[in-house]
Structure formats: structure tokens, C-alpha cells
């Protein structure tokens, strides 16, 4: 997010790399990086773990970024992919919170939690949420953790393919192939269960996936 230059006395140079380089000798300049990207990072983190853990994870992400800022690739003009990568690293340390939040989202849908449902309904206004969520939840949960990171950085973090490659430090071709594979998996019919369309079967599938998330086996 570009700061409001008209109201802010803090100078704004053209790109993040200039600010980070300047912050190596003038540390307070790094606060401008924070102001530019905190909204995007916070929105992404909260969508992955819910609001309760967000403060801690976002704080840690920016502290790590500040301490490691001299390792930022100064050829990159935007720090957002780098920050998202750091946040993703920290999110990995909170697999249980991720799983709990995922379970809460699913439960909110299934159980009709008014507050959460309100959020879901507002964000899902343009399609039939009931059908689509029921179909997508278990399929997303069944993805590998590496695929889920790419999926969520793309769909919830609003990063481009190139930015995801930077954030995860993987080749852009890997990002393309993973998203292609993810798209095919999510578009495919739901995995067969003993009782098709049974809520219990879907829930069981999610629980297994959650255990995998928690223990890092996926």
C-alpha cells in the first residue's frame, strides 16, 4: 500500500529496495516498509489463522524482516513477496492454529455460526456458497502443504506467479505447474467416500487432512 504522501512527513522513495537500503544506515526508514505492506500481510495472515493469532504472527514477520533486511534482494523493487514469504515461514510454525482456523471455517459453514457466516456470506456473495464450499473444503484440505501454500498465496494473498516464486524461493515454472495441478485437483469430482454426499464422510476427510497439517506430513 502506498502511503499517503501528502499527509506523511516520512519521505517516500520510488521502490522498496531503496528504502530498505537506506534503512541499513537509518533504521527508522524501515517503518515505511511496514506502512506500505502491513495491511496486505495482516489480511493474508488473518485469513490463514484467524484474528486471534494474527497480531503475534504479523509482529514476528516484520521483526524478522527488519533484522534480516540486509539480506533482502536489492534487485527487487517490491518487498511484498519477501514479506509474504517470511509470514508463510512463520505460519508453518503455527500449523495447529491453521488447522483450528480451517476447522472453524468449515464448522461455521456447517453449523451456521452467525458472525463467521456473515463474513463468509459477504465474501461469497457472487456464487452459491453452500454448494461450492462444501465441495472445495475437503479438496483443499487434501492438497499437499506445498500446494496449499501456493494456492493461498495466489488466491488469498493476491500474489502473481512471479511474486509467489519470489516468496517461496522456487522457480516460476514450479509455481505454474503447481497451480495447474491444483486447478485440476480442485475442479475434479470429489474423492469417493463410502457414503457419497454424507457430511460425516467429508468431515472425516478434513480431520485427516488437519492431522497431516499439524504433523507436517502432507
Amino acid at each position, binding site marked *: 500500500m502506498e502511503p499517503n*504522501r501528502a499527509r506523511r512527513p516520512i519521505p517516500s522513495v520510488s521502490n522498496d529496495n531503496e528504502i530498505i537500503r537506506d534503512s541499513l544506515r537509518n533504521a527508522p526508514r524501515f517503518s515505511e516498509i511496514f506502512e506500505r505492506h502491513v495491511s496486505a500481510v495482516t489480511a493474508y495472515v488473518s485469513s490463514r489463522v484467524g484474528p486471534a493469532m494474527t497480531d503475534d504472527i504479523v509482529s514476528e514477520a516484520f521483526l524478522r524482516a*527488519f533484522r534480516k533486511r540486509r539480506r533482502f534482494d536489492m534487485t527487487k523493487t517490491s518487498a511484498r513477496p519477501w514479506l509474504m514469504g517470511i509470514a508463510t515461514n512463520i505460519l508453518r510454525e503455527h500449523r495447529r492454529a491453521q488447522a483450528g482456523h480451517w476447522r472453524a471455517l468449515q464448522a461455521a459453514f456447517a453449523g451456521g455460526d452467525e458472525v463467521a457466516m456473515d463474513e463468509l456470506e459477504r465474501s461469497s456473495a457472487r456464487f452459491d456458497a453452500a454448494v461450492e464450499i462444501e465441495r472445495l473444503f475437503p479438496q483443499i484440505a487434501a492438497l499437499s502443504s506445498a500446494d496449499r501454500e501456493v494456492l493461498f498465496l495466489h*488466491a488469498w494473498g493476491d500474489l502473481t506467479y512471479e511474486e509467489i516464486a519470489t516468496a517461496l524461493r522456487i522457480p516460476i515454472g514450479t509455481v505454474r505447474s503447481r497451480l495447474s495441478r491444483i486447478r485440476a485437483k*480442485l475442479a475434479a469430482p470429489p474423492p469417493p467416500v463410502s457414503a457419497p454426499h454424507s457430511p460425516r464422510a467429508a468431515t472425516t476427510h478434513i480431520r485427516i487432512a488437519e492431522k497431516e497439517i499439524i504433523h507436517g506430513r502432507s
Partner: protein
Amino acid sequence: MDVLDSVRELKPAYPVTTHAPRRALHREIARSQRRPLRRVALVTAGAAAAAAVAITASTFAPPGSIGGPEAASASAYLNETAASLRSSAVAGHATSTTIVLEQLRMVGGPDASDEPFGSIRTGATGAVLTESSDSYVSSSDGSSVTWTSSTDFHAGEVYGDAAAVEAAWNSYYGETYVGVLDKEPVTSAPNRPIDVAGAGIPVPLADFPADPQAFLNAWTQGMTEASMEAGTASGADDAASAGQSAAENMMWTLATSVLPYVATPEYRATFLEALALAEGIVVEDGDASAKVLVHETSDQRFRLVISPEDGMIVSAELSAPDGGTAEFVPEGTPDYAIRTSTAPALD
């Protein structure tokens, strides 16, 4: 609707604030500024002189060489520069180093849509060379560095469509401290010590191996650890993306960081000796007193100008050839550059 769009629609949105992360960061920034200047262990004058003799000798007989053409190799020039640097340090004078950072910013190009400035030259209509500079005085014993002067970021040379550059600059910087295009930059005198010892380039400035090969090994290990720390993918993916060579990483550091220029003479000399052992650096021009060394990767070109006689790194430049060309930009103008000059100073 594409299934990925459907996933996008699932994103929950919560009311969150950023006060706590902001407070935490500001506390950390304040804490970092209160850190005392750590003293750097110094080699004795005798040891430095002995090392200078040793390195000078190696200049004429570098490892694996039999004399002759190797005398004009990049490693020979780097070792010679290191030896001169040590000899100067033995003399024990305080030194003022001025470091100018330059960056070429393109206007009207394909990557200048969200912001008025980009880096791709092909298709751009104008360009501006930005500058900022700082001066540091290193004490005669090399144990402290004082930041003595700072000239704010400002516009230098303008190339191509001057009106477009001015419009872009003024719209972006006009209301900031930088000001409009033709505003004279402010120069201030901070006059305060800086903490260089705590700096975290791959080999810490306060604790480094004296042996060049050990230094190079430590640098390689440090950059690999940094890459793995920053990485978030699987081990195999990390290994592939962390394929930067030591030479590339060291040249990149020289072109983008002031730290190697304000380190102790011993650190700088060892750095150059280690760089001399790294692979892939060749001599572009060895005729003049200032020698031009280059290192090229698949997407970047580094150009290092050193003065072996003076023991100085004159400039370090970084360009990305993938950005194409713009005929209005003078040939040889890099994307980034650090240029230095030194002068005797009072302690």
C-alpha cells in the same frame, strides 16, 4: 467461474488492527539504534605488515600460477589492491570515505504503470539518475567509524524525454522531503558513530577469518544459511534457488551495500583476497591504473573498478541486461552503482 476464483471467494475477512505489530517494530528499531558500537579486534601493525608482504608476494606468484600472463589476472589485481590497502592501514591515518549511491530509474516503460518509475529500458521514454551520498571517517586504528556527512536522495542527470521525467518525478516526490526535480539536495552532518560491527552480511564485520580461503568458505556458508533462512520451500527447491555463487554474492554486496566500504582495512583486504579466490571474475580492462573487473551471470552483470596502487575499490556497478536498451541512456550506464573516494582525515 474458475475454480481458483472460487477459492478466492472463500477468503474470510476479519476486522484486525495493526497497532501491536507497529509498536513491536518501533521498539525494535529504537533498540537497534541504542546498541553500543562494538569494538573490532585489530591485527597489530606488525602482523598487518607481515601479511602485506605475504600478499604482495602472492601477487607475483598466485596459487597455481607460474608467472607471466597470470600477473594480469583478476585475482592478481585484487590481491595487489588488498596489499596496498594493508600498507595504507599500517601508516595509521584516519580516512574519510565518501560513498555515492546511484540508481537509474526509467520513465514510461512497461514496468512503470503502478509507479512512475521502472527499471526496464526497452520501451521507456526517459530516465533519471538518482543519487545520494554519505561520508564516513574511520579512525586511524580502524576501531570506530563516524558518519560525518549525508546528502539526501535527489535527481541527478536526466536522459530522454525531460518533460516526462520531470512530471513523473514531481508527481511522486514533489510533496515529500525530496522535492521537485531541480531542488538542491540537503546535506547534513550527523556526526555520530555507526554500528558496523553488528552488520549481518554473510561474514560479520566484527568476527571474520584472517585466511582468505577460510573467509571465502565462511562467506559461502553464510550466504547459504541466509538463503535457507529466507527460503520457505522444500529442500530441493531451496537448493535450486540458492544457486548464487560466492563471486556473485560478494559482487552484489559491493554494488548494493556500504558495509564493505566502512569495514576495517583488515576486513576489506581479506574480503578482496577471498574474492580473488572466487571463480568467474575476469579482467575487462587492465591498461589504465584503475583495473576493470567483470562478473556475469545469466541475468546480471557486475563491474568492479579497483585501484591496486591506491588499495581502493573505486566503484561497483550492477546491471540487468534483460532490461534491454534505451538509446538516450549513455552507453555503459549501470542500473545501480556505488562510487567511492577517500581522503585523509583527522581522528
